[in-house]
Protein backbone atom coordinates (compact mmCIF):
# COMPACT_ATOMS: atom_id res chain seq x y z
CA UNK A 1 0.00 0.00 0.00
CA UNK A 2 1.40 3.36 -0.95
CA UNK A 3 2.04 5.94 1.74
CA UNK A 4 -0.72 8.19 0.44
CA UNK A 5 -3.33 5.45 0.56
CA UNK A 6 -2.24 4.43 4.03
CA UNK A 7 -2.36 8.02 5.22
CA UNK A 8 -5.80 8.46 3.69
CA UNK A 9 -6.94 5.29 5.46
CA UNK A 10 -5.62 6.55 8.79
CA UNK A 11 -7.36 9.89 8.35
CA UNK A 12 -10.55 8.03 7.49
CA UNK A 13 -10.30 5.87 10.61
CA UNK A 14 -9.67 8.92 12.81
CA UNK A 15 -12.65 10.63 11.15
CA UNK A 16 -14.90 7.64 11.80
CA UNK A 17 -13.72 7.57 15.42
CA UNK A 18 -14.58 11.18 16.15
CA UNK A 19 -17.66 10.74 13.97
CA UNK A 20 -18.93 8.00 16.26
CA UNK A 21 -18.52 10.37 19.18
CA UNK A 22 -20.47 12.99 17.26
CA UNK A 23 -23.18 10.41 16.62
CA UNK A 24 -23.43 9.63 20.32
CA UNK A 25 -23.75 13.31 21.19
CA UNK A 26 -26.26 13.80 18.38
CA UNK A 27 -28.27 10.93 19.83
CA UNK A 28 -28.72 12.96 23.02
CA UNK A 29 -30.26 15.78 20.97
CA UNK A 30 -32.44 13.34 19.04
CA UNK A 31 -33.76 11.53 22.13
CA UNK A 32 -34.91 14.73 23.76
CA UNK A 33 -36.26 16.24 20.56
CA UNK A 34 -38.09 13.10 19.58
CA UNK A 35 -40.05 13.02 22.80
CA UNK A 36 -40.51 16.67 23.61
CA UNK A 37 -39.97 18.62 20.37
CA UNK A 38 -37.44 20.69 22.29
CA UNK A 39 -33.94 21.32 20.97
CA UNK A 40 -31.95 21.13 24.16
CA UNK A 41 -28.89 23.21 23.48
CA UNK A 42 -27.56 22.41 26.96
CA UNK A 43 -26.68 18.93 25.67
CA UNK A 44 -23.29 20.47 24.83
CA UNK A 45 -22.77 21.55 28.41
CA UNK A 46 -24.01 18.24 29.79
CA UNK A 47 -21.28 16.65 27.74
CA UNK A 48 -18.81 18.92 29.52
CA UNK A 49 -20.43 18.20 32.92
CA UNK A 50 -20.00 14.47 32.29
CA UNK A 51 -16.28 14.95 31.73
CA UNK A 52 -15.94 17.09 34.88
CA UNK A 53 -17.97 14.62 36.94
CA UNK A 54 -15.55 11.93 35.83
CA UNK A 55 -12.65 14.19 36.80
CA UNK A 56 -14.20 14.74 40.22
CA UNK A 57 -14.85 11.05 40.88
CA UNK A 58 -11.66 9.63 39.35
CA UNK A 59 -9.07 12.29 40.16
CA UNK A 60 -10.75 14.15 43.03
CA UNK A 61 -12.04 11.16 44.99
CA UNK A 62 -9.60 8.60 43.64
CA UNK A 63 -12.19 6.15 42.40
CA UNK A 64 -11.42 3.58 39.77
CA UNK A 65 -12.51 4.48 36.24
CA UNK A 66 -15.02 1.62 36.20
CA UNK A 67 -16.83 3.21 39.11
CA UNK A 68 -16.30 6.81 38.01
CA UNK A 69 -17.74 6.30 34.51
CA UNK A 70 -21.19 5.05 35.59
CA UNK A 71 -21.29 7.72 38.28
CA UNK A 72 -20.48 10.45 35.75
CA UNK A 73 -23.17 9.11 33.41
CA UNK A 74 -25.65 8.94 36.30
CA UNK A 75 -24.68 12.51 37.23
CA UNK A 76 -25.68 13.66 33.76
CA UNK A 77 -28.96 11.79 34.07
CA UNK A 78 -29.59 13.40 37.44
CA UNK A 79 -29.10 16.88 36.01
CA UNK A 80 -31.50 15.93 33.23
CA UNK A 81 -34.11 14.76 35.73
CA UNK A 82 -33.79 17.88 37.88
CA UNK A 83 -33.93 20.26 34.92
CA UNK A 84 -36.93 18.47 33.43
CA UNK A 85 -38.89 18.35 36.68
CA UNK A 86 -37.83 21.75 37.93
CA UNK A 87 -37.90 23.89 34.80
CA UNK A 88 -39.04 22.26 31.58
CA UNK A 89 -42.22 20.67 32.91
CA UNK A 90 -43.35 24.01 34.30
CA UNK A 91 -43.01 25.41 30.80
CA UNK A 92 -45.33 22.87 29.22
CA UNK A 93 -47.41 24.66 26.63
CA UNK A 94 -45.02 27.60 26.34
CA UNK A 95 -43.66 28.37 22.89
CA UNK A 96 -40.76 26.13 21.81
CA UNK A 97 -38.56 29.22 21.43
CA UNK A 98 -38.95 30.08 25.13
CA UNK A 99 -37.99 26.57 26.14
CA UNK A 100 -35.09 26.60 23.70
CA UNK A 101 -33.84 29.86 25.22
CA UNK A 102 -34.07 28.31 28.68
CA UNK A 103 -31.74 25.53 27.55
CA UNK A 104 -29.34 28.13 26.15
CA UNK A 105 -29.35 29.88 29.52
CA UNK A 106 -28.96 26.59 31.32
CA UNK A 107 -25.82 25.91 29.26
CA UNK A 108 -24.29 29.21 30.36
CA UNK A 109 -25.16 28.51 33.98
CA UNK A 110 -23.46 25.10 33.80
CA UNK A 111 -20.34 26.64 32.25
CA UNK A 112 -20.27 29.24 35.03
CA UNK A 113 -20.67 26.59 37.71
CA UNK A 114 -17.84 24.50 36.29
CA UNK A 115 -15.56 27.56 36.16
CA UNK A 116 -16.42 28.36 39.79
CA UNK A 117 -15.63 24.84 40.97
CA UNK A 118 -12.80 23.72 38.70
CA UNK A 119 -11.55 26.97 37.19
CA UNK A 120 -11.39 27.95 33.54
CA UNK A 121 -8.07 26.26 32.74
CA UNK A 122 -7.99 23.12 30.62
CA UNK A 123 -7.52 19.91 32.60
CA UNK A 124 -6.65 16.37 31.76
CA UNK A 125 -8.44 13.39 33.23
CA UNK A 126 -6.78 10.22 34.47
CA UNK A 127 -6.05 7.90 31.61
CA UNK A 128 -8.16 4.76 31.70
CA UNK A 129 -7.95 3.63 28.11
CA UNK A 130 -4.19 3.19 27.71
CA UNK A 131 -1.86 4.54 25.08
CA UNK A 132 -0.68 1.54 23.11
CA UNK A 133 -1.65 2.29 19.51
CA UNK A 134 -4.05 0.04 17.66
CA UNK A 135 -3.20 -1.21 14.18
CA UNK A 136 -5.92 -2.22 11.80
CA UNK A 137 -3.86 -3.97 9.17
CA UNK A 138 -1.12 -1.43 8.52
CA UNK A 139 -3.20 1.59 9.48
CA UNK A 140 -2.55 3.23 12.83
CA UNK A 141 -5.43 4.40 15.01
CA UNK A 142 -5.14 6.15 18.34
CA UNK A 143 -6.29 3.70 20.99
CA UNK A 144 -8.57 6.28 22.58
CA UNK A 145 -10.34 7.04 19.35
CA UNK A 146 -10.66 3.34 18.66
CA UNK A 147 -12.23 2.71 22.06
CA UNK A 148 -14.50 5.75 21.67
CA UNK A 149 -15.66 4.33 18.34
CA UNK A 150 -16.43 0.92 19.80
CA UNK A 151 -18.27 2.29 22.81
CA UNK A 152 -20.28 4.82 20.82
CA UNK A 153 -21.12 2.19 18.23
CA UNK A 154 -22.34 -0.25 20.89
CA UNK A 155 -24.47 2.37 22.64
CA UNK A 156 -26.02 3.57 19.40
CA UNK A 157 -26.74 -0.02 18.35
CA UNK A 158 -28.60 -0.58 21.61
CA UNK A 159 -30.68 2.56 21.09
CA UNK A 160 -31.49 1.65 17.51
CA UNK A 161 -32.64 -1.80 18.62
CA UNK A 162 -34.74 -0.23 21.37
CA UNK A 163 -36.43 2.09 18.93
CA UNK A 164 -37.00 -0.73 16.52
CA UNK A 165 -38.26 -3.41 18.87
CA UNK A 166 -39.53 -1.67 21.94
CA UNK A 167 -42.88 0.05 22.14
CA UNK A 168 -41.31 2.80 24.27
CA UNK A 169 -39.65 4.09 21.11
CA UNK A 170 -43.02 4.44 19.44
CA UNK A 171 -44.48 5.95 22.61
CA UNK A 172 -41.73 8.55 22.45
CA UNK A 173 -42.77 9.53 18.94
CA UNK A 174 -46.44 9.42 19.84
CA UNK A 175 -45.92 11.77 22.75
CA UNK A 176 -44.16 14.27 20.54
CA UNK A 177 -46.82 14.08 17.85
CA UNK A 178 -49.96 14.58 19.88
CA UNK A 179 -49.93 14.86 23.64
CA UNK A 180 -53.69 14.66 24.11
CA UNK A 181 -53.93 11.54 21.98
CA UNK A 182 -50.95 10.05 23.81
CA UNK A 183 -52.65 10.69 27.15
CA UNK A 184 -55.84 9.07 25.93
CA UNK A 185 -53.89 5.97 24.87
CA UNK A 186 -52.68 5.58 28.44
CA UNK A 187 -49.18 6.91 27.76
CA UNK A 188 -47.74 8.59 30.81
CA UNK A 189 -46.70 11.75 28.98
CA UNK A 190 -44.78 13.48 31.80
CA UNK A 191 -43.06 10.16 32.48
CA UNK A 192 -41.93 9.93 28.86
CA UNK A 193 -40.60 13.50 29.06
CA UNK A 194 -38.60 12.71 32.18
CA UNK A 195 -37.24 9.50 30.75
CA UNK A 196 -36.15 11.20 27.52
CA UNK A 197 -34.36 13.97 29.42
CA UNK A 198 -32.68 11.54 31.80
CA UNK A 199 -31.48 9.18 29.08
CA UNK A 200 -30.54 12.02 26.73
CA UNK A 201 -28.50 13.89 29.34
CA UNK A 202 -26.88 10.67 30.60
CA UNK A 203 -25.86 9.85 27.03
CA UNK A 204 -24.37 13.31 26.62
CA UNK A 205 -22.42 12.90 29.86
CA UNK A 206 -21.09 9.54 28.69
CA UNK A 207 -19.97 11.10 25.41
CA UNK A 208 -18.28 13.80 27.49
CA UNK A 209 -16.20 11.25 29.40
CA UNK A 210 -14.99 9.76 26.11
CA UNK A 211 -14.34 13.17 24.56
CA UNK A 212 -12.51 14.37 27.68
CA UNK A 213 -10.29 11.32 27.71
CA UNK A 214 -9.27 12.03 24.12
CA UNK A 215 -8.84 15.78 24.09
CA UNK A 216 -8.77 16.84 27.72
CA UNK A 217 -11.39 19.06 29.30
CA UNK A 218 -12.16 22.71 29.56
CA UNK A 219 -15.36 24.61 30.32
CA UNK A 220 -15.69 25.38 26.60
CA UNK A 221 -15.38 21.80 25.38
CA UNK A 222 -19.14 21.89 24.82
CA UNK A 223 -18.40 23.57 21.49
CA UNK A 224 -18.14 19.98 20.24
CA UNK A 225 -21.90 19.89 20.70
CA UNK A 226 -22.30 22.49 17.94
CA UNK A 227 -20.89 20.03 15.42
CA UNK A 228 -23.25 17.44 16.87
CA UNK A 229 -26.11 19.85 16.26
CA UNK A 230 -25.08 19.99 12.61
CA UNK A 231 -25.10 16.18 12.62
CA UNK A 232 -28.63 16.19 13.94
CA UNK A 233 -29.82 18.59 11.28
CA UNK A 234 -28.12 16.60 8.55
CA UNK A 235 -29.38 13.26 9.82
CA UNK A 236 -32.85 14.40 10.84
CA UNK A 237 -33.84 15.79 14.24
CA UNK A 238 -36.04 12.84 15.11
CA UNK A 239 -34.01 10.01 13.65
CA UNK A 240 -31.56 7.97 15.77
CA UNK A 241 -30.36 6.26 12.60
CA UNK A 242 -29.83 9.70 11.05
CA UNK A 243 -27.69 10.63 14.08
CA UNK A 244 -25.48 7.60 13.41
CA UNK A 245 -25.06 8.22 9.68
CA UNK A 246 -24.83 11.99 10.04
CA UNK A 247 -22.21 11.68 12.80
CA UNK A 248 -19.95 9.43 10.74
CA UNK A 249 -20.42 11.68 7.72
CA UNK A 250 -19.57 14.90 9.55
CA UNK A 251 -16.69 13.15 11.33
CA UNK A 252 -15.21 12.16 7.97
CA UNK A 253 -15.79 15.60 6.46
CA UNK A 254 -14.04 17.26 9.41
CA UNK A 255 -11.13 14.83 9.25
CA UNK A 256 -10.61 15.27 5.49
CA UNK A 257 -11.07 19.03 5.58
CA UNK A 258 -8.78 19.37 8.60
CA UNK A 259 -6.07 17.23 7.04
CA UNK A 260 -6.13 18.15 3.38
CA UNK A 261 -7.34 21.76 3.51
CA UNK A 262 -5.96 22.80 6.90
CA UNK A 263 -7.41 22.92 10.42
CA UNK A 264 -9.19 26.23 9.86
CA UNK A 265 -11.39 24.60 7.18
CA UNK A 266 -12.85 22.02 9.56
CA UNK A 267 -15.70 24.12 10.87
CA UNK A 268 -16.11 25.95 7.56
CA UNK A 269 -16.81 22.61 5.91
CA UNK A 270 -19.16 21.46 8.67
CA UNK A 271 -21.25 24.59 8.71
CA UNK A 272 -21.34 24.89 4.93
CA UNK A 273 -22.98 21.48 4.97
CA UNK A 274 -25.42 22.77 7.57
CA UNK A 275 -26.46 25.69 5.37
CA UNK A 276 -26.71 23.51 2.28
CA UNK A 277 -28.75 20.92 4.13
CA UNK A 278 -31.19 23.49 5.52
CA UNK A 279 -31.80 24.74 2.00
CA UNK A 280 -32.26 21.44 0.20
CA UNK A 281 -33.57 19.05 2.83
CA UNK A 282 -34.55 20.85 6.05
CA UNK A 283 -36.02 17.74 7.67
CA UNK A 284 -32.68 15.92 7.33
CA UNK A 285 -31.65 12.77 5.52
CA UNK A 286 -33.74 10.45 7.66
CA UNK A 287 -36.04 12.83 9.49
CA UNK A 288 -39.81 12.63 9.38
CA UNK A 289 -41.16 14.74 6.61
CA UNK A 290 -44.47 16.08 7.81
CA UNK A 291 -47.18 15.16 5.36
CA UNK A 292 -50.04 17.59 5.42
CA UNK A 293 -53.30 16.95 3.71
CA UNK A 294 -54.91 20.30 3.08
Amino acid at each position, binding site marked *: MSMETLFFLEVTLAGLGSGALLSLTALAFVLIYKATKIINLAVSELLMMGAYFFLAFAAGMGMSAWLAIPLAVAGGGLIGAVVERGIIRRMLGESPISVFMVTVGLGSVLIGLVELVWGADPRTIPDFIGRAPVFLGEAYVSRKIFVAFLVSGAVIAVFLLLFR*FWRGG*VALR*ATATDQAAAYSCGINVPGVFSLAWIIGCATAAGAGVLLGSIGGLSPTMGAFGLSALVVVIVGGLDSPFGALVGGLFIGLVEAYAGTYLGGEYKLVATFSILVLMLVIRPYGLFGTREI*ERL
Partner: protein
Amino acid sequence: MTTHPLPGPGSHQAAPPTAAPAAAALSVEGLSLSFGGIKALRDVSFDVAPGSITALIGPNGAGKTSMFNCISGFYRPSTGRILMDGRDVSQVHAPDRARMGFARTFQNIALFRGMTVLDNIKLGRHAHLKTNIFQALAYFGAAAREEEALRAEIERDVIDFLEINHIRNAPVAALSYGLQKRVELARALAMRPRILLLDEPVAGMNREETEDMARFILDVKEEWGITILMVEHDMGMVMDISDHVVVLNFGQVIARGLPHEVQQNPEVVAAYLGSGDPAALMKRLAEEGAA
Protein backbone atom coordinates in the same frame (compact mmCIF):
# COMPACT_ATOMS: atom_id res chain seq x y z
CA MET B 1 -81.02 7.09 6.75
CA THR B 2 -82.40 10.58 6.65
CA THR B 3 -80.36 13.28 8.23
CA HIS B 4 -82.22 16.09 9.84
CA PRO B 5 -79.74 18.49 11.34
CA LEU B 6 -82.09 19.80 13.99
CA PRO B 7 -84.38 17.94 16.33
CA GLY B 8 -87.96 18.68 15.57
CA PRO B 9 -91.29 17.29 16.58
CA GLY B 10 -91.35 15.23 13.40
CA SER B 11 -90.75 11.62 14.37
CA HIS B 12 -93.40 9.41 15.85
CA GLN B 13 -91.75 6.27 17.09
CA ALA B 14 -93.55 3.91 19.40
CA ALA B 15 -92.38 4.72 22.90
CA PRO B 16 -90.70 1.79 24.62
CA PRO B 17 -90.86 2.00 28.39
CA THR B 18 -88.09 4.10 29.91
CA ALA B 19 -86.05 1.60 31.86
CA ALA B 20 -84.09 3.11 34.69
CA PRO B 21 -80.48 1.88 34.51
CA ALA B 22 -79.78 -0.61 37.27
CA ALA B 23 -76.08 0.13 37.86
CA ALA B 24 -74.69 2.81 35.59
CA ALA B 25 -71.47 2.02 33.75
CA LEU B 26 -70.66 5.70 33.96
CA SER B 27 -72.17 8.26 36.30
CA VAL B 28 -71.56 11.96 36.39
CA GLU B 29 -72.66 13.56 39.64
CA GLY B 30 -73.02 17.30 40.17
CA LEU B 31 -70.12 18.22 37.93
CA SER B 32 -69.12 21.89 37.61
CA LEU B 33 -66.23 23.33 35.67
CA SER B 34 -65.22 26.92 35.08
CA PHE B 35 -62.52 28.67 33.11
CA GLY B 36 -61.95 31.96 34.88
CA GLY B 37 -65.39 33.54 35.06
CA ILE B 38 -66.93 31.31 32.43
CA LYS B 39 -68.92 28.44 33.79
CA ALA B 40 -68.51 25.72 31.20
CA LEU B 41 -70.44 23.13 33.19
CA ARG B 42 -72.97 23.75 35.94
CA ASP B 43 -74.02 20.93 38.24
CA VAL B 44 -74.23 18.34 35.47
CA SER B 45 -75.49 14.88 36.40
CA PHE B 46 -76.36 11.95 34.21
CA ASP B 47 -75.98 8.18 34.02
CA VAL B 48 -74.94 5.94 31.19
CA ALA B 49 -76.44 2.45 31.31
CA PRO B 50 -74.09 -0.49 30.69
CA GLY B 51 -74.02 -1.64 27.08
CA SER B 52 -76.01 1.35 25.84
CA ILE B 53 -75.35 4.16 23.42
CA THR B 54 -75.95 7.48 25.10
CA ALA B 55 -75.81 10.64 23.05
CA LEU B 56 -74.78 13.95 24.55
CA ILE B 57 -76.23 16.71 22.41
CA GLY B 58 -76.63 20.44 22.59
CA PRO B 59 -75.83 23.60 20.64
CA ASN B 60 -72.22 24.65 20.06
CA GLY B 61 -70.56 25.83 23.24
CA ALA B 62 -72.97 23.90 25.44
CA GLY B 63 -70.08 22.16 27.22
CA LYS B 64 -70.17 18.76 25.54
CA THR B 65 -66.47 18.53 24.79
CA SER B 66 -65.64 20.00 28.21
CA MET B 67 -67.71 17.17 29.67
CA PHE B 68 -65.66 14.64 27.65
CA ASN B 69 -62.43 16.21 28.81
CA CYS B 70 -63.57 15.89 32.42
CA ILE B 71 -64.52 12.25 31.92
CA SER B 72 -61.21 11.35 30.29
CA GLY B 73 -59.29 13.24 32.96
CA PHE B 74 -57.88 16.17 30.96
CA TYR B 75 -59.83 18.72 32.99
CA ARG B 76 -60.27 18.71 36.74
CA PRO B 77 -63.85 19.75 37.55
CA SER B 78 -64.20 22.16 40.47
CA THR B 79 -66.96 20.09 42.04
CA GLY B 80 -68.67 16.81 41.39
CA ARG B 81 -67.68 13.21 40.85
CA ILE B 82 -67.28 10.79 37.98
CA LEU B 83 -67.98 7.14 38.70
CA MET B 84 -67.17 4.09 36.63
CA ASP B 85 -69.24 1.07 37.65
CA GLY B 86 -69.91 2.85 40.93
CA ARG B 87 -66.25 3.52 41.62
CA ASP B 88 -65.15 7.13 42.01
CA VAL B 89 -62.45 7.88 39.43
CA SER B 90 -62.37 11.67 39.91
CA GLN B 91 -58.84 11.61 41.32
CA VAL B 92 -57.39 9.20 38.73
CA HIS B 93 -54.93 10.69 36.20
CA ALA B 94 -55.72 10.60 32.49
CA PRO B 95 -53.30 7.81 31.46
CA ASP B 96 -54.51 5.63 34.33
CA ARG B 97 -58.13 6.24 33.34
CA ALA B 98 -57.22 4.98 29.88
CA ARG B 99 -55.80 1.86 31.52
CA MET B 100 -59.00 1.40 33.56
CA GLY B 101 -61.01 1.20 30.37
CA PHE B 102 -61.84 4.67 29.12
CA ALA B 103 -61.08 5.22 25.44
CA ARG B 104 -61.98 8.23 23.39
CA THR B 105 -61.85 9.85 20.00
CA PHE B 106 -61.46 13.56 19.41
CA GLN B 107 -63.55 16.19 17.69
CA ASN B 108 -60.51 17.41 15.72
CA ILE B 109 -58.94 14.07 14.95
CA ALA B 110 -55.94 13.43 17.18
CA LEU B 111 -53.95 10.81 15.33
CA PHE B 112 -50.20 10.40 15.44
CA ARG B 113 -49.30 12.08 12.19
CA GLY B 114 -46.27 10.75 10.39
CA MET B 115 -47.05 7.23 11.53
CA THR B 116 -48.84 4.49 9.68
CA VAL B 117 -52.37 3.36 10.40
CA LEU B 118 -51.08 0.17 12.01
CA ASP B 119 -48.66 2.03 14.30
CA ASN B 120 -51.44 4.36 15.37
CA ILE B 121 -53.73 1.48 16.23
CA LYS B 122 -50.97 -0.42 18.01
CA LEU B 123 -50.42 2.57 20.25
CA GLY B 124 -53.92 1.99 21.55
CA ARG B 125 -52.62 -1.21 23.12
CA HIS B 126 -49.58 0.53 24.50
CA ALA B 127 -50.83 0.79 28.03
CA HIS B 128 -51.53 -2.92 28.24
CA LEU B 129 -48.13 -4.16 27.07
CA LYS B 130 -45.81 -5.55 29.66
CA THR B 131 -42.14 -5.14 28.80
CA ASN B 132 -40.45 -2.08 30.30
CA ILE B 133 -37.24 -0.53 29.05
CA PHE B 134 -34.93 -2.69 31.14
CA GLN B 135 -36.64 -5.91 30.18
CA ALA B 136 -36.61 -4.76 26.58
CA LEU B 137 -32.85 -4.23 26.85
CA ALA B 138 -32.34 -7.66 28.35
CA TYR B 139 -34.76 -9.60 26.16
CA PHE B 140 -35.10 -8.11 22.74
CA GLY B 141 -36.72 -11.38 21.70
CA ALA B 142 -39.51 -11.16 24.24
CA ALA B 143 -40.29 -7.56 23.35
CA ALA B 144 -40.30 -8.39 19.65
CA ARG B 145 -42.57 -11.41 20.20
CA GLU B 146 -44.98 -9.31 22.22
CA GLU B 147 -45.11 -6.80 19.36
CA GLU B 148 -45.73 -9.57 16.85
CA ALA B 149 -48.56 -11.09 18.90
CA LEU B 150 -50.07 -7.65 19.29
CA ARG B 151 -50.00 -7.03 15.58
CA ALA B 152 -51.73 -10.32 14.83
CA GLU B 153 -54.40 -9.63 17.42
CA ILE B 154 -55.06 -6.13 16.15
CA GLU B 155 -55.26 -7.24 12.54
CA ARG B 156 -57.72 -9.95 13.48
CA ASP B 157 -59.96 -7.99 15.82
CA VAL B 158 -59.81 -4.35 14.86
CA ILE B 159 -58.56 -3.87 11.32
CA ASP B 160 -60.80 -6.48 9.74
CA PHE B 161 -63.74 -5.38 11.86
CA LEU B 162 -63.50 -1.77 10.73
CA GLU B 163 -62.66 -2.71 7.14
CA ILE B 164 -59.43 -0.75 6.97
CA ASN B 165 -57.19 -3.59 5.86
CA HIS B 166 -56.36 -1.89 2.57
CA ILE B 167 -54.88 1.19 4.28
CA ARG B 168 -53.09 -0.40 7.22
CA ASN B 169 -49.62 0.59 6.04
CA ALA B 170 -50.61 4.02 4.76
CA PRO B 171 -49.46 7.13 6.64
CA VAL B 172 -52.52 8.48 8.44
CA ALA B 173 -51.94 12.06 7.33
CA ALA B 174 -52.62 11.07 3.72
CA LEU B 175 -56.05 9.57 4.42
CA SER B 176 -59.43 11.13 3.85
CA TYR B 177 -61.20 12.70 6.78
CA GLY B 178 -63.71 9.87 7.08
CA LEU B 179 -60.99 7.22 7.12
CA GLN B 180 -58.98 9.17 9.69
CA LYS B 181 -62.02 9.14 11.96
CA ARG B 182 -62.29 5.41 11.44
CA VAL B 183 -58.62 4.89 12.32
CA GLU B 184 -59.19 6.89 15.48
CA LEU B 185 -62.06 4.56 16.36
CA ALA B 186 -59.80 1.59 15.60
CA ARG B 187 -57.17 2.92 17.97
CA ALA B 188 -59.78 3.39 20.68
CA LEU B 189 -61.05 -0.17 20.14
CA ALA B 190 -57.52 -1.57 20.31
CA MET B 191 -57.50 -0.30 23.89
CA ARG B 192 -60.26 -2.82 24.64
CA PRO B 193 -62.20 -0.18 26.52
CA ARG B 194 -65.24 -0.65 28.72
CA ILE B 195 -66.44 2.85 28.02
CA LEU B 196 -65.96 4.47 24.65
CA LEU B 197 -66.27 8.24 24.33
CA LEU B 198 -66.85 9.40 20.76
CA ASP B 199 -66.57 13.13 20.15
CA GLU B 200 -68.48 13.88 16.95
CA PRO B 201 -67.75 10.59 15.19
CA VAL B 202 -69.42 11.61 11.92
CA ALA B 203 -68.72 15.35 11.81
CA GLY B 204 -67.77 16.45 8.31
CA MET B 205 -68.64 13.10 6.74
CA ASN B 206 -70.81 12.53 3.71
CA ARG B 207 -73.93 10.42 3.99
CA GLU B 208 -72.27 7.18 2.97
CA GLU B 209 -69.44 7.62 5.44
CA THR B 210 -71.93 8.57 8.13
CA GLU B 211 -73.95 5.42 7.54
CA ASP B 212 -70.81 3.27 7.66
CA MET B 213 -69.75 4.87 10.92
CA ALA B 214 -73.22 4.49 12.44
CA ARG B 215 -73.14 0.81 11.53
CA PHE B 216 -69.69 0.38 13.10
CA ILE B 217 -70.82 2.10 16.29
CA LEU B 218 -73.86 -0.17 16.55
CA ASP B 219 -71.65 -3.21 15.90
CA VAL B 220 -69.26 -2.08 18.61
CA LYS B 221 -72.14 -1.90 21.04
CA GLU B 222 -73.66 -5.21 20.03
CA GLU B 223 -70.61 -7.37 19.30
CA TRP B 224 -68.13 -5.93 21.78
CA GLY B 225 -70.63 -4.99 24.48
CA ILE B 226 -68.93 -1.67 25.02
CA THR B 227 -70.80 1.19 26.67
CA ILE B 228 -70.75 4.23 24.42
CA LEU B 229 -71.14 7.90 25.19
CA MET B 230 -71.16 10.05 22.09
CA VAL B 231 -71.30 13.73 21.28
CA GLU B 232 -72.89 14.31 17.90
CA HIS B 233 -74.61 17.04 15.95
CA ASP B 234 -76.03 14.80 13.26
CA MET B 235 -79.52 14.41 14.74
CA GLY B 236 -80.54 11.79 12.21
CA MET B 237 -77.79 9.53 13.43
CA VAL B 238 -78.38 10.38 17.09
CA MET B 239 -82.05 9.49 16.79
CA ASP B 240 -81.32 6.31 14.86
CA ILE B 241 -78.71 4.67 17.03
CA SER B 242 -78.84 6.06 20.55
CA ASP B 243 -80.68 4.42 23.40
CA HIS B 244 -80.65 7.49 25.59
CA VAL B 245 -80.10 11.20 24.98
CA VAL B 246 -78.82 13.88 27.34
CA VAL B 247 -79.18 17.49 26.23
CA LEU B 248 -76.79 20.17 27.46
CA ASN B 249 -77.31 23.90 27.01
CA PHE B 250 -75.07 26.58 28.51
CA GLY B 251 -73.38 23.95 30.67
CA GLN B 252 -76.59 22.59 32.14
CA VAL B 253 -78.63 19.47 31.49
CA ILE B 254 -81.94 20.69 30.11
CA ALA B 255 -83.43 17.37 29.09
CA ARG B 256 -82.78 13.66 29.08
CA GLY B 257 -84.65 10.60 27.96
CA LEU B 258 -85.37 8.43 24.98
CA PRO B 259 -84.48 9.98 21.61
CA HIS B 260 -88.04 10.76 20.56
CA GLU B 261 -88.94 12.18 23.97
CA VAL B 262 -86.03 14.55 23.84
CA GLN B 263 -86.85 15.49 20.28
CA GLN B 264 -90.28 16.73 21.31
CA ASN B 265 -89.16 18.48 24.46
CA PRO B 266 -90.06 22.18 24.05
CA GLU B 267 -86.97 23.32 25.96
CA VAL B 268 -84.71 21.38 23.59
CA VAL B 269 -86.45 22.80 20.57
CA ALA B 270 -86.08 26.27 22.06
CA ALA B 271 -82.38 25.73 22.71
CA TYR B 272 -81.77 24.75 19.11
CA LEU B 273 -84.26 26.87 17.21
CA GLY B 274 -85.19 29.59 19.67
CA SER B 275 -88.62 29.56 21.23
CA GLY B 276 -90.35 31.26 18.34
CA ASP B 277 -91.34 33.98 20.73
CA PRO B 278 -89.87 37.38 19.63
CA ALA B 279 -90.08 38.72 23.17
CA ALA B 280 -88.00 35.82 24.50
CA LEU B 281 -85.43 36.34 21.76
CA MET B 282 -85.17 40.08 22.52
CA LYS B 283 -84.80 39.25 26.21
CA ARG B 284 -82.05 36.70 25.50
CA LEU B 285 -80.17 39.07 23.21
CA ALA B 286 -80.39 41.79 25.84
CA GLU B 287 -79.03 39.37 28.46
CA GLU B 288 -76.21 38.28 26.20
CA GLY B 289 -75.44 41.90 25.36
CA ALA B 290 -75.27 42.73 29.05
CA ALA B 291 -73.06 39.74 29.86
